[in-house]
C-alpha cells in the first residue's frame, strides 16, 4: 500500500539523484505549417500530479496525445522509465487516458466498460470481476454496474471514465480536461476527490486544463504552456508569486503591470505610470534597462486619503469601477496618465457600503515586497 505523502515535502524534481518516470525530450509535433508542440522538454516524477495549463490551442492536448501514443512526435523522444516509447503502439503503453468527452462505449454497460481494458490483458474472469467491483466501489458506483452510459448523469459518466482508466493501474494516467463537462458545484467537489484518489493510489497523473484554479488546487507542479512550449514549470504558489514573465503573470491570475526603467540604486523602477516605485530586493538588471513590476490586485491597497508614511509606491487616481463580489471588492483606479490599476480588497468587516465611491479621488499603494520584477 503506498503511503500517503505530505504535499509540502514532495519535491522529487528538486532532487538531482531522482530519476524521472516520464521524460519528454525536445519533442516537436507539427500539423500543417504550425507547430503544436515545439521542442518541448519536461520531466515528470513518480507520484506527481502534474498540470498542463494553457489557453486553448496551446498544444497541451497534443502533448497528452503524444504521450498516449495517438500522435507520433516529428522529432524528440518520450521515455517512460528510461524506455523510448516511439516503437510502442498506444495499446501496449502502460499509460491510460481519460478522454475529455469520456469516450465511454455506448454499447457496453458500466461494468463492461470498466472491464474492457482488463479483458484485453487476458486476465481470468474472476480477477477481472474482482478488480472491476473494487474500482466501482472506489468511485462510488457499486450499484450502477448494469447501467448503460446514457443512463448516467454527467458526474457518474466522469467517474466511469476515471474507473475505466484507473483499473488498468497505469504508470501514468493522462486526464484531458477531466472536469470541463461538469457544472461548477460538482467540479469543485470532484477536484478534491481526484486529488484524494491520486494520493491514495500513489499514481502519477498528468492533467490538461485551461482552468487555472483547477490546476492550482490539484497539481504538485504546473507547466504553463503557450504556442507549443512551456513558459514556466513550477509549484502552483511559485507560478503565482514568482511568475517568470509578463505572459505567465497575466495568464495565471490578474496582475497590474508597471513598465519603467531600473534606477541607479537597483532598488527602484523609474518612469512608471505610478512614478518611481521601490522594490525590496536588488533588481537583476542593469540601471536603465526596461523592466516591469507585477503586483497582484489583492496586494494593492486603496485609500480615500493620501497615506501619511511612507510615501513610496503610492499614486493618486480616480475610481472608475467598483465590483462587489461578496468576499472581495474590486476597485479600478485610473491614474493621471490614463493607466488603470486594479485592487482587490477583502471585505473583512461588515461595512454598510464601499468606503470609496465612484468618481472619487483615491490613492493606491503597495509594499515593496509585493512587487515582482519581470524582465521579459
Amino acid at each position, binding site marked *: 500500500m503506498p503511503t500517503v505523502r505530505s504535499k509540502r515535502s514532495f519535491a522529487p524534481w528538486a532532487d538531482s539523484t531522482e530519476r524521472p518516470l516520464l521524460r519528454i525530450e525536445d519533442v516537436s509535433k507539427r500539423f500543417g505549417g504550425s507547430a503544436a508542440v515545439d521542442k518541448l522538454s519536461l520531466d515528470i516524477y513518480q507520484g506527481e500530479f502534474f498540470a498542463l495549463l494553457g489557453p486553448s490551442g496551446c498544444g497541451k492536448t497534443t502533448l497528452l496525445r503524444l504521450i*498516449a*501514443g*495517438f500522435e507520433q512526435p516529428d522529432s524528440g523522444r518520450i521515455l517512460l522509465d528510461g524506455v523510448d516509447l516511439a516503437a510502442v*503502439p*498506444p*495499446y*501496449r503503453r502502460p*499509460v*491510460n*487516458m481519460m*478522454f475529455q*468527452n469520456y*469516450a*465511454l*462505449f*455506448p*454499447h457496453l454497460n458500466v461494468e463492461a466498460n470498466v472491464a*474492457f*481494458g482488463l479483458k*484485453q*490483458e487476458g486476465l481470468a474472469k474472476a480477477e477481472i470481476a474482482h478488480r472491476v467491483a473494487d474500482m466501482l466501489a472506489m468511485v462510488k458506483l457499486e450499484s450502477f454496474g448494469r447501467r*448503460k452510459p*446514457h443512463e448516467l448523469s454527467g458526474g457518474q459518466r466522469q467517474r466511469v471514465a476515471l474507473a*475505466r*482508466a484507473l483499473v*488498468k493501474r497505469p504508470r501514468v494516467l493522462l486526464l484531458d480536461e477531466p472536469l470541463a463537462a461538469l457544472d461548477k458545484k460538482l467540479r469543485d467537489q470532484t477536484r478534491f476527490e481526484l486529488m484524494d484518489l491520486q494520493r491514495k493510489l500513489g499514481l502519477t497523473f498528468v492533467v490538461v486544463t485551461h482552468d487555472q484554479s483547477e490546476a492550482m488546487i490539484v497539481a504538485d507542479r504546473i507547466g504553463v504552456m503557450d504556442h507549443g512550449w512551456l513558459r514556466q514549470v513550477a509549484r502552483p504558489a511559485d507560478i503565482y508569486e514568482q511568475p517568470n514573465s509578463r505572459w505567465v503573470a497575466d495568464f495565471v491570475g490578474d496582475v497590474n503591470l508597471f513598465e519603467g526603467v531600473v534606477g541607479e540604486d537597483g532598488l527602484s523602477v523609474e518612469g512608471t505610470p505610478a512614478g518611481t516605485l521601490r522594490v525590496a530586493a536588488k533588481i537583476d538588471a542593469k540601471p536603465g534597462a526596461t523592466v516591469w513590476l507585477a503586483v497582484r490586485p489583492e496586494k494593492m491597497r486603496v485609500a480615500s486619503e493620501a497615506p501619511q508614511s511612507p510615501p513610496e509606491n503610492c499614486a493618486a487616481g480616480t475610481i472608475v469601477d467598483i465590483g462587489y463580489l461578496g468576499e472581495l471588492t474590486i476597485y479600478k483606479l485610473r491614474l493621471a496618465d490614463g493607466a488603470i490599476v486594479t485592487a482587490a480588497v477583502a471585505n473583512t468587516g461588515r461595512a454598510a457600503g464601499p468606503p470609496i465611491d465612484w468618481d472619487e479621488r483615491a490613492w493606491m499603494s503597495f509594499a515593496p515586497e509585493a512587487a515582482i520584477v519581470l524582465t521579459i
Partner: protein
Amino acid sequence: MIPKRTFVEKLAVRIPYAWLLVFFLVPFLIVLRISLSQPALAQPPYAPLFNLLAGWHGITAFFGALSLDNYVLIGSDPLYLLSFVKSVEIAAFSTLFLLIIGYPIAYGITRTQHRIQAVLMTLVMLPFWTAFLIRIYAWMNILQHDGPLNQLLMALHIVNTPPVWLATDTAVYIGIVYSYLPFMVLPLYATLEKLDESLLEAAADLGCPRSKIFWEVTLPLSAPGVLAGALLCFIPAVGEFVIPDLLGGSRAPMIGQTIWTEFFGNKDWPAAAAVAVALIGLLVTPIVIFQHQTMRAVERG
C-alpha cells in the same frame, strides 16, 4: 401542458397515415379479397364479384363464396414452397454478399477526407442515373457466352472453356448484389460516419490492438446500420422479379416469377394474390415487427 395542435399540424401528422391507407392498405385489401376468390373465365378473371344491386342477399352471397381454397392449393403444391425457399435463399445469400462487399466500401469511404467522401458517395449512387432495366440488359451482355467476362477469363487463361453464366443462380447473385449495393452502402455509411473517433482511441488506449478494435467496438456500434442495410436489401430481394427473370434460369423460379406466371401465364389471379399475401404474412410482417422492436431498442440505448 401540451398546446392544442393547429389544423395544419394535425394534417401534417395525418398525411403519412392517409398515404399508407390509400396506397398500401387499400391495395392490400383488394389483393386479399382476390386471394379469397376463384379463377373465372371472365373480365376480371375471378369470382365472385361484388354485386350491390342484389342488396343484402348479394352481400351474403359474396361473402359466402369467398374461400381459403387458394391457400390450401399453395400449401399443398410443393412448387410454391420451393419457390418461397428459393427466394429466401437467394435473398439471404445476396444480403450476406452485399454486407461483405458493402461494409468495407462504406468503412473505407468514412476513412477518407471529408471532401472526398462526398465524391465517393456520389460515385456509389451514380448507377442510379441510368435505367435499372438497361443495366440488367448490360449484365446479360457481359455474362453471355462470348461476352466480355468470358473473353477476359479466356484471355487471362483463368479458364479454358467459357463457363455458362446466364440462366444460373450465380448470374442472379451478380445482378442482385450489383443492383442493391447502394442500398447497403448508404445506411452503413450513415452509421459509420457518426462513429466517434475517440471511442476507437479509447479502445486502443485500454490495450485493444487495431485488428480487435473493429470486432469489439466498430462492428457492434454499426449494428443499426448493418440491420437497416440488410433489411433494405433482403425484403425487396425476396420479391425480386426482373433480375431472376432476365439473368436466372427457369428451373427453380423465385417467388416473384411464380406470382408473375400465375398472373399472366395461367391467368389465375386468385392464386397469384394468395402467394403475394402469404409472402407478406410469412416474411414481411415478422421482419417489420422485428425491425420496429430493434429500432425502439436502439433509440432507448
